[in-house]
């Protein structure tokens, strides 16, 4: 082995461990021996490697620590463990269960979202029938329809369900603005223009009463189309009534 003059020491040191153990070829040994005679640093390194190597060699030759646990201990563990199951069958079962749970959750979420987004048709019908019953009840109690008290009661119940005395209920803005912008009948009323009364500036109360009468008349028919139409008309009527109530009592 020939070492270059610039990195001779680093090249020699890479082989000192083997040199100390009596390894390497004759030519390599001669080259290293020649270098060590001229380089004290590398000679010192060789002494250190020799000591470490002798220690390791002696250590390897002596008996080393033995384990205390034997085959019987391991055999006990091997026989005690449950029978091995195929990885595929376990993962397949887990995947199937996971997919089933996921699908069920997705279905529940989907139907929940659908129910919360769409109005309950039956509930709307019931709500419409409840509103229709109000004027009759008021009439029966001797409160004439078309008065301020009955207007407020109608507006509250139509928009918010059961009312609490002393609390002012807000009307949906789109209904209020729609009613204010055009004093003309709501398009839903125009659809059934023959039977639906028209609203005028002079007679708001009269319009509402007339519409309620119309609703009562429609309810008696009991058809689905009429029931849906009745709900829309009732909303418009509620808006008109609230507007009148607010103008009369601006608190």
């Amino acid at each position, binding site marked *: 082995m020939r070492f270059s003059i610039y990195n001779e020491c680093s090249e020699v040191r890479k082989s000192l461990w083997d040199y100390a153990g009596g390894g390497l070829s004759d030519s390599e040994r001669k080259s290293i021996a020649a270098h060590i005679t001229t380089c004290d640093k590398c000679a010192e390194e060789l002494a250190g490697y020799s000591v470490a190597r002798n220690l390791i060699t002696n250590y390897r030759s002596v008996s080393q620590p033995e*384990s205390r646990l034997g085959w019987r201990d391991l055999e006990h563990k091997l026989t005690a463990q449950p029978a091995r199951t195929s990885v595929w069958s376990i993962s397949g079962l887990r995947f199937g269960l996971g997919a089933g749970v996921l699908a069920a959750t997705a279905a529940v979420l989907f139907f929940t979202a659908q129910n919360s987004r769409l109005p309950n048709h039956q509930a709307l019908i019931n709500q419409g029938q409840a509103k229709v019953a109000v004027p009759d009840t008021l009439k029966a109690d001797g409160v004439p329809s078309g008065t301020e008290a009955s207007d407020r009661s109608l507006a509250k119940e139509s928009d918010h369900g059961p009312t609490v005395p002393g609390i002012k209920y807000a009307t949906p803005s789109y209904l209020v603005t729609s009613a204010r912008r055009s004093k003309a009948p709501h398009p839903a009323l125009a659809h059934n223009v023959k039977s639906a009364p028209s609203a005028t500036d002079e007679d708001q109360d009269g319009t509402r009463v007339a519409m309620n009468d119309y609703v009562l008349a429609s309810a008696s028919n009991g058809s689905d189309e009429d029931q849906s139409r009745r709900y829309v008309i009732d909303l418009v009527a509620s808006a008109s009534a609230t507007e009148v109530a607010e103008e009369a009592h601006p608190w």
Partner: protein
Amino acid sequence: MVAAHGVIMRVAEDQLVARCRAGDLDAYSQVYDKYERQVFRYAYHILGHREDADDIKQETFLKAFQAINTFRSESSLQTWLLKICGNLCRDKIKSWDRRKVTYDSTLRDDELGCSDEYDGPQALAERKELTGIIMKALQGMPPAQREIIVLHEIQDLSYEEIAAVLGCSRTSIKLRLFRARRSLKERVASLMGTAD
């Protein structure tokens, strides 16, 4: 002649592995008898704790039996077992780092694997001193360097075998071994009071 012997050994090992795959515990006991000492000493020198090394050895053979179907005979059974053992030792050292447990180089007489009935008290004392220096020198080394010293200098594995155990190239192993030897030399010199 040597190559033919190696082939015969390899065939015998393949047959043994095939029987182990079929769940033959007698075949696995032969594997255990052949390699358990090597696995234990590897774990012992890496960890420095006899009890932990015992546990790691048993866990190595337990895991190896459970995963014997994944053994593809690309490496030898010996390097495969040592690889499992090395991974378990590294996990153990990580758990020590969390629990602030360190390499234990203090040795009891019963950990030396010899008794004064055969060697006499003086030989036992010398052996204890020698083993103590080696263990202390290993203690002061980084675990990665300690691993490579144990595999090459104590377990006598070749570069190729070490590369298979540690998952490195042969060139990388040579470089790492050079650094580990230099570190060991400095540690030994420091322990024996010959340092500059």
